[in-house]
Structure formats: C-alpha cells, structure tokens
C-alpha cells in the first residue's frame, strides 16, 4: 500500500492528522504544502470530488493507492483503524459515540470559529490564479472575502462566543479526568488542534479555565503531538491559519 500525506503547518486539521499518523506509526510519505497559499488546489488530486468538495476548507489530503481522502477527523479514524498501538477511540460503543459526537461539535461549531478568527489575525494569501483553481464555489467565496479583509462583526462576535463555549465544555469535562474521553483520544487531538491558537486571540475565554490551560499543556507535550509540532516550518505553528469550514449559514 502506498500512502502520501499532503499537509500544512501542524495546526488545525493538519495537526490532527499528523499527530494521529505519528501515534499510530503509519508509514506514509510526508509532503509539505502551504495551505495558507492555497497550494492544496495545485495538487494533481485536487479536483477529485471528495477533495474539491470537502467542507473542511483547507486541510490535509491523504492519498492511499490513488484515492485522495479529505476531512481530518475521518482520515484520523482511518489511520486509527489501520495503524499500530493504542486506539485513539474508546473500545466501548457508548464512549465511541461520545467521542464522535464531541468531534462533530468541534467540526461544526469550534473549527469554523477558530479558522475565522485565525484568518483575521494571520491572513492566508493566495494569488488569483490559485483562487481560480478552487473547485468549490463556496470555498472560493470564503477565500475571496478573507483575502479582501471582509470580516463581519456579527460573525466575529459569534466566533468568539463559540470559542468561549468550547472552553466551557472542556473545562466542565475535565472536572474528573485528565483527558476528554478518559484515555488520550482523537477528541483531545481534534480539540487541541483548533484551540491551540485561541489563547492568543480570545484570551478572556481562558482566564477562569485552569483545567483547560493544564490540559492544553498536556496535549502539547504528548509524544505524538510534540513530534508533529516539531515538523513546523514557522516559529509558532498555532499562528498558521488558512480558510476553514463555513460558519453555519442557517441556525
């Protein structure tokens, strides 16, 4: 089986997949692309429908025997299935439901908010020729708005509220545990990947959240995460952002 992972800086969706790949000891060729310059759209597999129409926005692509896979949490589930070592999802069905539901909330509510705030603070830059290659009309529209510096006050406020809510959920969850699902899991990776850059951008959300602060440090120090972060080309990967998932357009 031949596997190539195209990934960006270890933050957001690239971090989830890189850390999972490392934790599960999956042999794959790593190929760096600058997601913040839209380089995903220049890949030979960019126009495969399940890449072009991924609603994650700019994330990594794993190519396995010619099939290009997108959507970081589901790539991570795949790697968890095929890799070695400790499982990154609990074995018991109810706990797995909790993990998938937790990740879904991160995907749907936290990721769009974090990417929106991240892109405002650290704007991605793609040239017009690259933007033209973007297969998804709505992703291209988000790129155009972000590169034009058009951020809506309402969506910025909503995004900050979503980061507050995510931290509140994590803080509550950690009342009786070190990791979100008991043992270190995909829920920790996915949550950390989107929140690592948020203390710098929404500091007030973290003020009264000592458990969350300690958990962020724990995840960062976990061996697979530390090794993924060591692949960074910038000094602060948590400040590296590209266009993310759409903010829910209807309730």
């Amino acid at each position, binding site marked *: 089986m031949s596997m190539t992972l195209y990934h960006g800086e270890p933050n957001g969706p690239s971090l989830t997949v890189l850390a999972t790949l490392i934790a599960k000891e999956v042999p794959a060729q790593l190929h760096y692309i600058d997601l913040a310059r839209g380089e995903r759209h220049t890949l030979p597999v960019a126009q495969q429908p399940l890449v072009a*129409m991924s*609603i994650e926005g700019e994330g990594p692509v794993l190519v396995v025997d010619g099939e290009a896979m997108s959507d970081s949490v589901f790539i991570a589930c795949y790697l968890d299935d095929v890799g070695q070592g400790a499982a990154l999802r609990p074995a018991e069905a109810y706990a797995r439901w909790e993990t998938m539901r937790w990740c879904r909330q991160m995907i749907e509510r936290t990721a769009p908010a974090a990417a929106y705030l991240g892109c405002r603070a650290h704007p991605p830059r793609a040239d017009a020729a690259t933007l033209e290659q973007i297969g998804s009309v709505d992703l291209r529209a988000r790129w155009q708005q972000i590169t034009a510096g058009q951020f809506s006050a309402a969506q910025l406020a909503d995004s900050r509220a979503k980061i507050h809510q995510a931290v509140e959920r994590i803080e509550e969850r950690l009342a009786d545990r070190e990791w979100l699902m008991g043992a270190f899991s995909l829920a920790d990776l996915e949550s950390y990947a989107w929140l690592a850059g948020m203390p710098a951008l929404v500091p007030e959300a973290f003020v009264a959240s000592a458990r969350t602060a300690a958990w962020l440090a724990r995840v960062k120090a976990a061996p697979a995460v530390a090794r993924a972060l060591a692949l960074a080309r910038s000094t602060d990967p948590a400040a590296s952002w590209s266009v993310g998932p759409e903010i829910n357009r209807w309730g």
Partner: protein
Amino acid sequence: MQHLQKEGVGLMPSVTLYHWEPNANSGKPMLALMEKGVAFNSRYLDLINFDQHKPEYLAVNPQGTIPAMVHGDRVLTESTAIMEYVDEVFPGPPLMPGDPRDRWRVRWWMKFMDQWLGPSFSMIGWSVFVGPSVRSRDPKELEAAVERIPLPERRVAWRKAITGQFSAEEMAESRRRVAQGIRMLEQELSQRPWLASNQYSLADINGFNLAYALPLSQPTLSNDDLTPNILRWLRAIYARPATKACWALGRTSLVKRVTILEQPHIGGGQVA
C-alpha cells in the same frame, strides 16, 4: 409501539426513540434500528406542534433537538453519531463496511450531507412545508412556542421558517447546492452500487432520508433520464423491507411523497 421484535434482543436494555417523521434526521436512527432488527419504543414528537420543546421532552434532551435515543439509562443525540452507535452495539447485519477506507467514505458522505447538502434541502423544505404548516396559527401562540426553544440558533431558524424570511440569495444558494449535490450523487452512484461502498451502509440510510422524494421535489434535476443511478439507488433502498416498514410510520404528506418511487419510470417531462 414495538417493531420487528427479534429473538435475543430481549437481553439488551430497552431502546426508546424520540423522533418525528421518517425524514431527514429523525429517519436516520429509525431506519438504522429497523435494518438491524432492533425492537424499539417509538415516541412520536410532532415537530409542527413544537412537541420537541415541551418540558416532557426537554427532560430527556435539554437541547430540544430531535431525534434522541434512550438505551437503558443512557441518552444519545446527534442522528449520525446515534447510527454508528446502533450499528456497533446491536447484532444484525453490519451497516458499516469492513474496509477502513470504505468506512472513511461513508463518514465523508454523511458529513457532506449533514452539514452542506442537507441544510440546503431543509431550507427549501421548511419554506414550502414547515413554514406554511404553522403559519395559520395564532401569532402570539407561535411566538411563545419559539421563545421556549432552548438553542438560540434554532430560534433564529424557526422565526425565519415561520415568517418566510429566507432571503432570495439564501434560497438561490440552497438551490445551487442542491443542484450540485445531485450531480455529485449521480457521479458517485455511477461508480458503485451503493453510495460509499459496495455494500449497503449508513451512508445510504442517511442519503435516502435526504433524497427519497427527489424526483418529485426536483423533477427537472433528478429523474430516470437525467439521473438514472440516483433513481436506481432510491428504488433499491425503497424495496428493502425495513424501509417500507419505516416509511409506513409516516403521518404527513411530506413523507407519503416516497410513493413516487413506485412508478417504474419517471421521465424528464413527466412530473412537473
């Protein structure tokens, strides 16, 4: 109400499903349970009557979203995550493929339908069905009902549906997405018998809940001439005994539209 009682299931804790019609999110766990042959207590909540925001249901699911499943003493929400749970915990035919890459494809499609295509179908459905269904009621009573909705974003969605305030741009974008989604489904279904793998899976259950009335609701975009693979797929799912039993639970005209699939051929100019 008990469905499809099977031997051996009696040893498992009881299952109660709170649901609306076999349609969209409610229909996903309904059909998954029925495909697995799991008996469940059916608790029908009338969405149009705002049953899902009444105290009896908020005691089960404080967020007031449908569906919710109670298994023993555990409450589960989020229809797609519930389906994966149902598949893992109960005996019966597997609804996730064995190959890990196939499982990735199942999840990719479910997310795409849940978060991108589904809301567009839903905006159109609410503007033509849910909105008009509730609009004739007393405005004060409606406003009080909306005020009881726990999630602020759902309050916004309901207000828009009730007052018919989806903007022209929003509706146009939803129609664009529906058209593109139909092209993508047709393309994918031209490659294999089922949506995400060579075996019937949760992606098909999810997709049927979204698309079962497609040749009726989008006759110029989906019919036997334009999208033969989508029609083949919908008819194959409708032919399954579990689907028939599930859709028989429907009470509204919305769900009875499924009988369009009984027509042997739906041509491009036939349904207007």
